[in-house]
């Protein structure tokens, strides 16, 4: 595009009518600082309402666009506005600004530089920098989305390759460890596990890296720690084997394996799925610090009559993460309920979910949820474990009374049996004080260590533990 395009040609580049209209507004020289152009590129800084101006560069050869604004449209109104000003001869030739120089150099070095950039990014990122390989007048959405698709596929292939390498290495490490024995002193060294976790992070298997760190924490925890560690290693082995042959697995299971090994699913893709519209109650919330991030789990449930006349509880888990300086906030408060669309992430056990459209305002729940028996809760957890054995926790809602086991551990027991409370549960005395030795309704997370109580209902009151 060595010939300067006309304003009409520029407007044809707009992804939609709204962008074209907005571009005309953005083509106001007063809103731009340091706008300049040369033979190959045009650039400028758009002074927006945000604190930082947006850095905008357009490669006239592609044309290709880069703008630091958060818009997902390509080209965005700022790029179009800049091109319009350029077309109207309002941009004077100048020396390239550093950001424009940098970006253009990168494009010169690799003709497909934009692809290389985006491939390294996690899914969804890198949308700000997309080239359009079509002539100014001939740009159509189809051509652009084609390029988009190709990049996305390439990115996914690339990542799959890295993950495969990471999984192969993990499995080899597991076999080597079993060969030399769990009693080997290297296993007691945290560095051994950290190195493995770091390599898994490099291979973009973040989910597995976190698991490995949790296994490391079990080493030497009690006299029979070898059993715990072998159990986790066996699960990791199953996951690694599964992840290397997902194409042969049933679709749901393959999705579950992907999620457990760290392949993220785009939120938009989840929200595009068929929702479950129901009255959802927020029953519990847990926050755990993992490494440097806080993981918040919010448990939603909806209850309805089951085929056998009992109450069936359907669960959904909302996951949120917070880091230092960006703490996680509670979006759905415990003891509220609302009518909403809930979309589950793909997987063999529908658990992790997103809340889509809310059909009414969250309000205080009028009644306590209907609890089940201990046997039902353990049975439901077993059902989930059978489908995804690597599940680390499953929600339970039981009516039971705390009972001591005699060895310093406590259980929640009813007539059908007992579940032990996780060792070191620091609100145990509160739980016992609330119960007064009588059955109470408890919502908690059931894991291999036992139940971690989160919410208690007693005397018509709700208490967060």
């Amino acid at each position, binding site marked *: 595009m060595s010939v300067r395009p006309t304003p009409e040609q520029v407007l044809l580049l707009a992804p939609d009518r709204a962008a074209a209209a907005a571009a005309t507004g953005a083509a106001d020289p007063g809103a731009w600082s340091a706008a300049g152009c040369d033979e190959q590129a045009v650039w400028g800084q758009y002074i927006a309402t945000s604190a930082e101006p947006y850095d905008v560069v357009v490669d006239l050869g592609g044309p290709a666009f880069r703008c630091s604004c958060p818009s997902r449209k390509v080209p965005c109104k700022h790029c179009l506005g800049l091109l319009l000003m350029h077309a109207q001869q309002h941009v004077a030739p100048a020396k390239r600004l550093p950001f424009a120089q940098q970006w253009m150099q990168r494009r010169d070095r690799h003709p497909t530089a934009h692809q290389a950039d985006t491939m390294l990014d996690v899914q969804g990122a890198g949308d700000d920098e997309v080239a359009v390989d079509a002539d100014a007048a001939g740009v159509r959405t189809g051509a652009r989305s084609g390029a988009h698709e190709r990049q996305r596929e390439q990115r996914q292939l690339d990542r799959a390759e890295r993950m495969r390498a990471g999984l192969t290495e993990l*499995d080899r490490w*597991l*076999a*080597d460890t*079993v*060969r*030399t*024995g*769990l*009693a*080997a002193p290297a296993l007691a060294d945290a560095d051994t596990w950290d190195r493995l976790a770091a390599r898994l992070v490099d291979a973009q298997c973040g989910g597995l890296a976190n698991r490995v760190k949790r296994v490391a924490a079990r080493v030497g925890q009690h006299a*029979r720690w*070898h*059993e*715990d560690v*072998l*159990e986790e*290693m*066996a*699960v990791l*082995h*199953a996951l690694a084997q599964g992840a290397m042959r997902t194409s042969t697995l049933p679709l749901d299971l393959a999705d579950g394996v992907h999620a457990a090994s760290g392949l993220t699913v785009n939120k938009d893709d989840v929200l595009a799925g068929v929702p479950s519209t129901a009255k959802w109650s927020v029953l519990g919330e847990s926050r755990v610090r993992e490494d440097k991030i806080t993981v918040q789990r919010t448990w939603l449930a909806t209850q309805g009559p089951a085929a056998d006349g009992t109450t069936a509880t359907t669960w959904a888990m909302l996951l949120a993460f917070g880091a230092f300086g960006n703490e996680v906030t509670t979006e759905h408060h415990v003891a509220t309920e609302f009518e909403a669309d809930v979309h589950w992430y793909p997987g063999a056990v529908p658990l992790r979910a997103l809340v889509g459209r809310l059909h009414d305002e969250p309000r205080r729940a009028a009644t306590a949820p209907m609890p089940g028996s201990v*046997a039902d809760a*353990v049975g439901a*957890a*077993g*059902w989930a*474990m*059978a489908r995804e*054995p690597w599940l680390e926790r499953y929600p339970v809602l039981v009516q039971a*009374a*705390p*009972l*001591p086991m*005699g060895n*310093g551990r406590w*259980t929640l*027991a009813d*007539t059908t*049996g*007992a*579940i*032990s409370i996780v060792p070191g549960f620091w609100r*145990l*005395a*509160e739980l*016992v*004080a*609330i119960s*007064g*030795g*009588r059955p109470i309704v408890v919502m908690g997370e059931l894991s*291999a*260590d*036992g139940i971690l109580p989160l919410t208690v209902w*007693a005397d*018509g*009151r*709700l*208490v967060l533990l």
Partner: protein
Amino acid sequence: MSDLFVDHLTGPTGPTGPTGPTSAAPAVLLAASANDEWAALVGAAVLGTDRRPAPDPLPGWDAWARATDPAAALLDRAAAVVVARRAGACPQPRPPVTLPAAPVDTRPVCPAACAVRLARLLSGEHDLLLPEWFERCETAGIQLPWASLPTLLLKARRNPALDVAVRRLAAGRASWLADVVPELGVKVARSAPTASSPPFTTPPRPPDSGAVVTSILNVFYDRLATWATAPEMRVAAAAIDPAWLPSLVVELSRIGFDPTVERTRRDVLAIAEFRHEMHREFDAIHVIQAIPVTDTYEHPESHDLCLDISVDLSPGGHP
């Protein structure tokens, strides 16, 4: 998994290999075989398959022992047992102990707002007001929020007067809890206050609360309310007749920003607001339960006069 044990194996993840047991096999046998298989695998894994190869699989578990590499085969077999045990987990047997139930408490349950207020007091926020919370709770005739009982008992270990107050209000549940949860480390019998132990009482109410409010405000208007005066003013705000709290809150909120007194102002305002809210929450109980008001406390809204007085007290201090 150590706490969940198997006594049945069902569903698609059970051992259904070519030589797997049929569904007619007793569940107990399956559980026992899973445990034996697991024990054999753990033994080999601890020493390492190089030194101690895993024994041959038990009947029903050989479908997963096909890998040629002994280490990989061990992991395969371990994974199969883990899946079977996790999926087939059953509740533990109920512990053979019986826990005595706590004495029945017929008093109304503590309202959520008051319980939250107590939790905030116990977390150290304006803990000066803790005796007053107890006083109001006792007058209202409601239960202690049981979730706060352990914290109160622990706090009372070094404060016999508080211990007496907590155990009186807990009506038997304190001793019960100390008995059934020995790991809490609280004595079952209550401790007797000694002459040297700190008292657990509300600060003495001044004879003329209006005058105290006036003097607090004057200290601010004279810009003498430095940080050093804050503790005394906090105590004063905790001691005055609660009917004067609204006027204190209103007047303190009206004082314009002054860097010398701002920190103190916020501090005194915070405790006045906190105490005012606390009283409103307890007043609401009387309304709900329609219990005749027995104490001398009157509702702040009935004190229009005090607002008028307080306006007079602030010459030129507000627009």
